[in-house]
């Protein structure tokens, strides 16, 4: 999941969760507050009454009667005074039923005992329970609307901000990782950001890629230089042996040895030349401007290798559309198929087959498959076969043929695919980039 999606989900869900919790708790909270306020209100009313009694005396209320009672218009509040036998036990507040003028109502009642001129009186101040919670519902409604509005606004703000905040990260991924191809020849544009972490990430990635490029350049340069420098002594050796072999005074036995030396020098030369070729391809020393039909090129490859097919008595099937032409370096593409077919011959069984066929997909991509009925490639070697100095089993070759194929493919943005089952042959699929196809 992408970081932005995760953040969005988290922000939305966590806010929703908190708000839901609050909304669920709201009725309980509001009721509690209402009751507490009511109790406080009753205390205040009690103080007022006691104040009046202190100022004007109890008679102000009793007016000669034994007790006193008064209530508001709709019986929402009442107050009563009467003498009592109970001993003083402080104030109590309780929800009680009281009968007021034939109506039995539930009141929240504060009971206060006090003595006045030797007698104990009980003061009751009450308020109907119904009137206590009268604002609860509108209050709750209001709170929920307000919360929903706030929630919506903060979520929108959060989303906009995370979007802006995370934009440099997307830029970094796009510029540094998706848009760039090995060996990172072009510099990625600097990402605009005020976030230190992203700045650091961008700079570090640029630095890393520079290092990769430097290492790659160094290796390339080394290969090119070393191969080049090695060729001179190899030339000298080869020429010396050639001259010795031409010498008629050299005996048969010495000549045999010279022949063996010559083969060794030749092998050395081939390795060095192959490495040089790879480094030249990687150094872009081959122009790409030839336009040529592939079927003709493949026929030429087969002609070049005809003697080897004959030697191994292989059957060969070429089925390639004659109209398809590519826009690439002809020598390199020749070398690519030469090496692939050469491998198909080398690892084939006597009397086996080689198939070369093409396919033009609906989306315009074009591929050529070179398949053989040979010994195949073990599954654990499939990844490694394009590496340098890799070969399957013992025998001929120095193990650079497929490495050259892979370099050429990279140079022309061709993708390679290998399918193989040990003992059942191998198929190499050469998938041409659409940009490289001149005619289809």
């Amino acid at each position: 999941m992408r970081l932005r999606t995760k953040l969005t989900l988290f922000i939305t869900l966590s806010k929703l969760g908190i708000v839901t919790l609050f909304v669920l708790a709201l009725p309980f909270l509001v009721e509690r507050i209402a009751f507490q306020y009511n109790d406080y209100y009753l205390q205040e009313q009690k103080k007022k009454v006691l104040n009046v009694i202190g100022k004007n005396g109890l008679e102000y209320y009793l007016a000669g009667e034994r007790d006193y009672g008064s209530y508001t218009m709709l019986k929402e509040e009442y107050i009563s005074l009467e003498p009592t036998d109970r001993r003083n036990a402080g104030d109590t507040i309780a929800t009680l039923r009281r009968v007021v003028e034939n109506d039995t109502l539930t009141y929240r009642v504060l009971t206060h005992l006090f003595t006045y001129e030797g007698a104990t009186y009980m003061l009751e101040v009450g308020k109907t329970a119904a009137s206590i919670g009268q604002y609860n519902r509108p209050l709750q409604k209001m709170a929920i609307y307000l919360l929903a509005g706030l929630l919506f606004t903060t979520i929108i703000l959060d989303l906009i901000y995370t979007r802006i905040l995370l934009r440099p990260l997307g830029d970094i991924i796009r510029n540094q990782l998706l848009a760039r191809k090995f060996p990172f020849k072009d510099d990625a544009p600097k990402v605009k950001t005020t976030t230190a972490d992203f700045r650091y990430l961008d700079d570090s990635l640029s630095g890393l890629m520079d290092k990769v490029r430097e290492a790659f350049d160094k290796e390339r340069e080394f290969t090119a230089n070393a191969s080049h420098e090695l060729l001179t002594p190899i030339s000298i050796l080869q020429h010396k042996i050639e001259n010795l072999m031409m010498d008629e005074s050299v005996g048969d036995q010495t000549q045999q040895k010279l022949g063996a030396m010559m083969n060794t020098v030749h092998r050395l030369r081939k390795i060095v030349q192959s490495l040089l070729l790879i480094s030249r391809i990687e150094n872009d020393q081959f122009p790409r401007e030839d336009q040529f039909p592939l079927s003709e090129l493949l026929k030429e490859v087969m002609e070049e290798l005809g003697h080897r097919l004959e030697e191994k008595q292989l059957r060969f099937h070429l089925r390639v559309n004659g109209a398809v032409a590519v826009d690439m370096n002809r020598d390199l593409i020749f070398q690519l198929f030469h090496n692939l077919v050469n491998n198909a011959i080398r690892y084939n069984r006597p009397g086996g087959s080689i198939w070369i066929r093409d396919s033009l997909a609906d989306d315009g991509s074009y591929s050529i498959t070179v398949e053989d009925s040979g010994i195949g490639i073990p599954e654990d070697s499939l990844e490694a076969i394009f590496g340098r100095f890799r070969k399957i089993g013992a025998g001929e070759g120095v193990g650079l043929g497929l490495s050259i194929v892979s370099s050429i493919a990279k140079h022309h943005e061709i993708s390679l695919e290998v399918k193989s089952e040990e003992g059942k042959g191998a198929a190499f699929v050469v998938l041409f980039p659409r940009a490289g196809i001149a005619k289809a």
Partner: protein
Amino acid sequence: MTKVLIVEDEVLIAREMEQFLRQSRYHCDIAYTAAQALLKLEDNSYDFLLLDLGLPDKDGLALLYEAKKDMPDLSCIILSARGQVEDRIRGLDLGADDYLPKPFSLPELHARMQAVIRRKYGLREKLVSLGEFQMDLGSGQVLHEGTAVPLSKKETDVLSYLLLHKNRPITRMQLSEHIWGSYAGEDYDSNYIDVHIKNIRKKLAAKASTEWLQTIRNIGYKICV
């Protein structure tokens, strides 16, 4: 005798080239620098210039330009380890007759020189006898009692190459490199050249003996005449 100027800054390579070419009856001089080469070109008349491009004092192609200005008939083969396509094209534009990438084999150099000479001056002797056969060096045809024995292009190439270096052993490697050039692949121990020799022998043996085409065990082949 063909007079050759070898321009090559690697002393050992120049000497080996000289030795080989002298055995093949060329007269050779060596110049290790462009300056020496220009002096020698002024004092002597050469038929052939074997030019290494990587000279210490001057670009080989510049030297070629100056040499060709005074001696337009001078034949030239460029020897270069640089292997760049532009070098080859520019060299041929400047009038070089051929381009041989380093490292090359000495018999191959000889064959290329012969090809240039043949192209420019024709042949001194056209027919060479091979036992009871005759080979037409111009067309590459092998004749038996006046009628041509049909050989493929590659088979003719193999025979001509062996014939050019007659009485000397030629390795399979040298042969395959001559015929398949740089695409010879990396099969250093392959003997697919044998298939061609077998076919040549089969076709010729139907007419007469091919004793002159000898196999040298573990090495290659030789034409003895």
